């Protein structure tokens, strides 16, 4: 970049040039330079690669990615780092403060809080994985089928979604849980019924938008089959949206599980989930605040990181959406 001053000097110099002497060959016609007419100055890379470079610049998202990796690793190895199991009670050692023996203390049954927290994290991550899978399988399929078939099928499928949206999710989940025993299976089924609706709607509208795009028309004019359109055009062009929305569903699902467990509809003792632990901690917080603090930190960490990562991914995958 030239500074302001140098630009001005340069322009001033131009006026003198007219009186200046030129080389003999200055005024030879050399014509155009074919090679530099169509030069592409932009670096060559796919949109996903560009997105990754943008994501790497987002400090919050990268930090979240690191923290999430640590949390995931801890969820896997954490419970095995000491000799206690999550359900092992020790009535001699109830409500112990964090110490070298029990790194994060013990609860009212003398169970090791460290082990229980990482067990709970496992549950949350299982829920996260489940939510993402459901989004991917049911949500994407439902939305894509609805949009691709269109017409009457789409109409019926949309009515079903409208009814599902018309009922608050939580009410639906609570009713279901009453039908079955509270527990991980029940929560899983409840999420199967409700967790994918948002994704289905987003995918549907995206596919509808794509359907009228000229590159899809061009492909159809070339005789592309529906299968080919899906594989070659629809999937690659909705992938970004799907990933971003999946990342937003995850914290919502983690919250739902913890919430249900907190009000006693989710996992039951002696199983540990972050919601159960927070409920226990809440009951005991007056005198044993650490029992609330650590599970709260883990769940907040999970949710903040997933949200920040989702934000970052959205900005990176679709710079137009960036505000």
């Amino acid at each position, binding site marked *: 970049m030239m500074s302001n001053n140098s630009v001005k000097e340069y322009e001033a110099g131009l006026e003198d040039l007219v009186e200046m002497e030129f080389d003999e060959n200055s005024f030879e016609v050399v014509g155009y330079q074919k090679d530099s007419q169509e030069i592409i100055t932009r670096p060559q890379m796919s949109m996903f690669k560009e997105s990754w470079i943008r994501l790497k610049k987002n400090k919050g998202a990268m930090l979240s990615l690191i923290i999430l990796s640590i949390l995931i690793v801890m969820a896997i190895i954490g419970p095995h780092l000491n000799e206690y199991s999550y359900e092992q009670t020790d009535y001699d050692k109830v409500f112990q403060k964090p110490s070298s023996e029990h790194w994060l203390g013990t609860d009212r049954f003398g169970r090791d809080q460290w082990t229980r927290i990482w067990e709970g994290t496992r549950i949350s991550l299982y829920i996260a994985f489940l939510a993402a899978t459901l989004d991917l399988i049911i949500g994407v399929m439902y939305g894509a089928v609805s949009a691709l078939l269109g017409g009457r099928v789409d109409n019926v499928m949309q009515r079903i979604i*409208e*009814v599902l949206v*018309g*009922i*608050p*999710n*939580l*009410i639906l989940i*609570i*009713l279901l849980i*009453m*039908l079955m025993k509270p527990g991980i299976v029940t929560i899983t089924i409840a999420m199967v019924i409700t967790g994918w609706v948002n994704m289905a709607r987003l995918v549907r509208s995206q596919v509808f938008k794509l359907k009228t795009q000229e590159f899809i028309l061009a492909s159809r004019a070339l005789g592309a089959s529906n299968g080919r359109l899906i594989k070659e055009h629809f999937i690659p062009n909705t992938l970004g949206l799907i990933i971003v929305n999946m990342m937003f569903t995850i*914290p919502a699902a983690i*919250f739902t599980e*913890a*919430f249900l467990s*907190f*009000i*006693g*509809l989710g996992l039951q003792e002696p199983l540990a989930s972050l919601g159960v632990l*927070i409920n226990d*901690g*809440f009951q005991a*917080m*007056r005198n044993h*605040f650490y029992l*609330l603090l650590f599970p*709260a930190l883990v*769940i*907040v960490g999970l*949710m*903040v990181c997933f*949200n*920040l990562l989702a*934000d970052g991914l959205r900005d990176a995958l679709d710079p137009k959406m960036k*505000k």
Partner: protein
Amino acid sequence: MKKFIVVRVVNIILTLVVIASATFFLMKLLPGSPFDEEKLAGLSEEARTEFYAKYGLDKPIIIQYGIYMENLVKGDLGTSFYFKGQKVESLIKDRIGPSALLGLQAVILGMSIGLILGMIAAFRHNTAWDYFTMFIAVIGVSIPNFVFAALLQYYIGLKWGILPVAFWESYSSSVLPTIALAMMVIALIARFTRNEMLEVLQQDYILTAKSKGLSKWSVIFNHTLRNSLIPIITILGPITVSLLTGSLVIENIFGIPGIGSLFVDSIKVNDYTTIMGLTLFYSAFYILTILVVDLLYGIIDPRIRLTESKG
């Protein structure tokens, strides 16, 4: 517009019928319900007949369903199993006060703070203000409300003793739960306001307004704000949901005698009629909110108002 309202109202009634029927049949299937055959096996023939008659269980299920629906129309939600002899509708009536107060306060507080934060972020786009506000918003949606409520109670209530920890004794008891409920609202509104305003600020008509020579503030108030605030009505739906869910845990944590804690308590004691009644109540409330949002949006945004009335 009229046609639109009629269609929507019919839709709402249909949805409510579906929910009511679902709850009814669900309850018939539920294990451990008072209607469970096994539970009644111990009773004498006479007692059983009497019990059946009392709850109308001697009739075919279709008739029972009919009676149930008829009662619903009359506003009769049935008798609670746990609170002996109390009608569910009167339970709701007794308990709705605190919940409504908290909800209303949370909406007002959340909206005002959220709007202010969102606007500051939009006008100070890409500055520390903006980043700070968005950080608050992410934290706001990320911290589960029950964790936040518990922390509030611990620090402000217990440790520092500034405000009452729990129970419904004076107005000051409502402060902490209101804040806890409002947090999510603040986060949602702040984020939405900011994004909408940034969107509107990029529109061509803002440039037209500037080219008229309007002052900065005139452009903001007459063109930017109005157009970015209209869509905010649309997130009232999600906000209602977050308040309904929030009330379940927060009323419980702060020991508030509202319908949220009633709901959780009835779940714990398997008070089926109350759960059913509250489910219907919540659903109706939510659906009505959505309807009001749609209608309001239609009234406020001339594009919708006028196209609808044409067709």
